[in-house]
């Protein structure tokens, strides 16, 4: 015990507001893990990928943190664990965070032409993880295609300082003035629950459909909507088509995450999102697809106002600032968060999440085919992102059945859209 073995000081950070729920509610059935994958035109070289990962970690110090339990809250703690790229060998979105485990909250897989980043949701949201993956791909491309690129090596736009990337944007953008009285009471009605036969070992079934952004945009416009609104309506419709007709008393409700970075000045690579619920009651409303699109479109406009987003943020912070909630021991908090989560789950049937456009330097476009995203799910969930003109719609589901996915993709293909399907099982 001498002074010389004093190592780098261990840093620690509180979890941001949206992260707090994930460690308490993750389990083998719902791992709260998502996967971002980049598919190249040639096989991945693991050694270069490892070098690229080492370089990437320098700009994302949070990715070397581990999650630990304190007496009152969970916290992140810096570690000296050195992540290694691995040959993909597990089912998508397998558990990452294990209670009491002291491992990193992400992993990098490679398999044939794919590079996948899997992360535990407490570490970052999808938008934050995209930055990490973009940076990783940038370094990888630079290493692997050094010769072809020659002088044309593009420089990387980091976009934000390291401290900005590590910031807790919930605290920074929260205005305590807003009284909770303004908050709308959320409907307490339970939503239709999608049922099915579970796959063995809590595995996830991933079905990806790749299609042209332009073609999808054209189709969406025919219904007077943008892509997100159109796909939300189509998912509602597909779930409706699969729903046993005696069950349609309950509304189908989709949870839609909102990226708060577009409403506030933030470039955090951690979590910064909230969600809204978009529901449709098929018992009392029209069953025409175009009417569903109209209603979803209206709901999006109502929910996504500046004022409403501010209110959502205030509501989020209410619990965090509640003194009784704060001094409750973590074990008690865990129980309450689990119960709260179960209540929330009752109010939604599924979710749809648009991770957005992924960009790389123009010089790399010849080497990258597509990007895709999927997330652990207790009911079929839809996530999507685009790269250039290629948009990948990924369904993740714990069920054997694929009826919702079939209805969804058949609707698109019948409208003349070419779809390429990939699946893990």
């Amino acid at each position, binding site marked *: *015990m001498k002074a010389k073995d004093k*190592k780098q000081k*261990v840093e*620690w950070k*509180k979890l941001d507001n949206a992260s707090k729920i994930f460690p308490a509610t993750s389990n083998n059935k719902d791992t709260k893990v998502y996967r971002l994958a980049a*598919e190249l035109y040639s096989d991945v070289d693991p050694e270069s990928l490892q070098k690229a990962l080492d370089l990437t970690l320098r700009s994302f110090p949070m990715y070397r943190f581990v999650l*630990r339990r*304190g*007496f*009152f*809250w969970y*916290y992140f*703690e810096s570690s*000296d664990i050195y992540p290694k790229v691995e*040959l*993909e*060998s*597990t*089912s*998508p979105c397998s558990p990452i965070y*294990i209670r*009491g*485990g*002291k*491992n990193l909250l992400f992993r990098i897989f490679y*398999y*044939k*032409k*794919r590079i996948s980043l899997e992360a535990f949701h407490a570490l970052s949201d999808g938008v934050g993880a995209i930055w990490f993956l973009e940076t990783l791909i940038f370094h990888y491309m630079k290493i692997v295609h050094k010769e072809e690129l020659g002088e044309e090596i593009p420089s990387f736009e980091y976009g934000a300082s390291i401290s900005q990337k590590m910031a807790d944007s919930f605290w920074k953008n929260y205005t305590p003035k807003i009284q909770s009285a303004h908050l709308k009471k959320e409907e307490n009605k339970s939503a239709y629950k999608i049922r099915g036969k579970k796959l*063995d*070992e809590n*595995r996830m079934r*991933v*079905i990806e*459909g790749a299609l042209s952004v332009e073609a999808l945009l054209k189709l969406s416009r025919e219904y007077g909507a943008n892509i997100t609104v159109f796909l939300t309506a189509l998912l509602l419709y597909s779930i409706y088509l699969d729903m046993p007709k005696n069950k349609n008393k309950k509304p189908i409700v989709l949870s839609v995450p909102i990226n708060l970075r577009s409403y506030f000045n933030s470039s955090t690579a951690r979590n910064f999102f909230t969600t809204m619920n978009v529901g449709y009651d098929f018992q009392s409303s029209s069953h025409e697809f175009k009417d569903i699109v109209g209603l979803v479109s209206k709901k999006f406009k109502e929910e996504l106002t500046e004022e409403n987003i501010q209110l959502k943020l205030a509501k989020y912070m209410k619990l965090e600032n509640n003194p009784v909630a*704060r*001094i409750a021991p973590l074990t008690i908090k865990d129980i309450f968060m689990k119960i709260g989560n179960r209540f929330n789950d009752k109010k939604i049937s599924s979710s749809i999440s648009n991770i957005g456009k992924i960009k790389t330097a123009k010089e790399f476009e010849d080497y990258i085919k597509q990007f895709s995203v999927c997330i652990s799910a207790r009911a079929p969930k839809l996530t999507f992102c685009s790269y250039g003109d290629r948009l990948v719609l990924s369904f993740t589901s714990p069920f054997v059945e*694929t009826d919702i*996915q*079939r209805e969804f*993709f*058949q609707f698109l*293909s*019948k409208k003349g859209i*070419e*779809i*390429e*399907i*990939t*699946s*893990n*099982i």
Partner: protein
Amino acid sequence: MKYCGHCKVYIREDHDRCVLCENILEEFDGKTEEVFPEVPPFYESRLGIKIMMFISIVALVVSFGFNMIFPSEINWPILFMFAVISIWIGLIIIIQKRYHIPKKIVWQVFIVSVLAVFWDYKIGWRGWSLDYIIPIASVSAMIIMYVTAKIMNLSVSDYVTYILLDGVFGIIPIVFIVLDLVKVIYPSIISIGFSIISLSAIFIFRGEEIKAEITKRMHI
């Protein structure tokens, strides 16, 4: 790629049937890809545990049966059963706490002590568990912890809680001496002395880190 005439979609992998509608697929351009790896069932990796469980049961049945056919004075199948149970408990703890080696060591000390007392009691209380096992276990645990902390380059925050726990545990033999429960007092004295010295060393030399660790774990 392949093509599903029913769904009117292209399938990139070499499947026979459509993943959406289960109809037979048509050839499209003869080129298929493998995008996801095939993941074998988890069951196989558990086979080792299953075999061990089976061997334990067979061995226990055989030993009890053998003892009934050829009775002996010592009830050795019971002892054998304790041994098997201790091994299993130890194994379960190693598997469950594989991330926290110091925690695991403390748990082992605790379990060894409890099992020793129980065993000692079962075979007619000769007092060896209090005389030797508990003091020796806590001193050796502390030594093992220092050594693993050095070898594995663990940071103070990883082991400080456990070394404190073990230090407190190592002082417990004071109670045995005071209540006159031990016949051989040397191991107890060594354990108490060693624990007090280690605890004070930690507080004196690593006090700041302990404080930092406490603020971190107790943040509200």
